[in-house]
C-alpha cells in the first residue's frame, strides 16, 4: 500500500510491472490514469497545488478505507503536483485483488474520491488568462454514491 505525491511524471508500465512482479495471487489489476484534458483547446496548462503533509495523510487514509471495504492485495496512488500540460498524466490509481469486482470497485471508489475530495487545488491557464477552478457539484455526487 503506497501513496506518492510528486512533481515527476510516472511510468504506467513500470508501475504495473512493479505491482505485479513475482505474484501469482492476483486475479486482476484495475487501473485508472487521469490525464490533463485540453477541453476543446481552451486549457493550455494546469497547475496542481497541494498541502504537503495533509494531502499525503488523507490519501493514506482513503487507501486504508478502500482496503477495509474490499479484499485488496495491494493498492497504489501516485498523484502529481505542479504545472502540467494537456496530455500529461496527473494521477494513477492501481488496485489488485484475487477478485475482479473488488479491484474494480476499489479503483473506482479511490479515483472518485481523489477527483473530488482530495486536498488538491487546480489553477487553469487558457487563452483568456488563468483562474482557480471551482469545486464541482457533479463530482461530489459521483463520490457520494459510495456512501460512508
Amino acid at each position, binding site marked *: 500500500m503506497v501513496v506518492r505525491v510528486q512533481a515527476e511524471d510516472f511510468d504506467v508500465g513500470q508501475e504495473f510491472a512493479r505491482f505485479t512482479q513475482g505474484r501469482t495471487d492476483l486475479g486482476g489489476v484495475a487501473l485508472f490514469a*487521469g490525464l490533463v484534458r485540453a477541453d476543446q483547446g481552451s486549457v493550455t496548462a494546469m497547475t496542481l497545488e497541494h498541502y504537503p503533509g495533509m494531502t499525503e495523510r488523507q490519501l493514506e487514509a482513503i487507501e486504508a478505507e478502500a482496503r477495509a471495504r474490499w479484499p485488496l492485495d495491494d493498492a497504489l496512488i501516485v498523484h502529481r503536483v505542479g504545472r502540467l500540460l494537456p496530455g500529461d498524466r496527473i494521477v494513477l490509481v492501481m488496485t489488485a485483488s484475487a477478485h475482479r469486482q473488488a479491484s474494480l470497485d476499489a479503483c473506482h471508489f479511490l479515483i472518485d474520491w481523489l477527483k473530488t*475530495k482530495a486536498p488538491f487545488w487546480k489553477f487553469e491557464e487558457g487563452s483568456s488568462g488563468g483562474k482557480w477552478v471551482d*469545486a464541482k457539484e457533479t463530482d461530489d455526487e459521483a463520490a457520494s454514491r459510495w456512501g460512508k
Partner: protein
Amino acid sequence: MKILYFASIRARVGHGEEEIALPPDVKTVADLVGWLKSRGDTYAEALAEARTLRAALNQEHVSFDAAIKNSDEVAFFPPVTGG
C-alpha cells in the same frame, strides 16, 4: 502559531505561510479569521467569502468553532477541487 494559505486564498493573501503570536482573546478558528481580517484590506478581501472558506487545524479539516492554541498549525483554503 503557523498559518498556511493555499490556492486562491494564498494568491490573494500574497504569501503561503506566516508565523504569528496568537492574541489571548483569539480562541477559535472563527476568532482567528476575524483577527486576520482586522489586519488590513488584503486579508479582509482574501478571507471575505465565508461560504467558500475552509480551514484545517493540524492538518485535519475543522469547522470554524474549533478551539485553537498558539502551538497549532492552521490552514485556510477554498473547497478542494480534487486531482
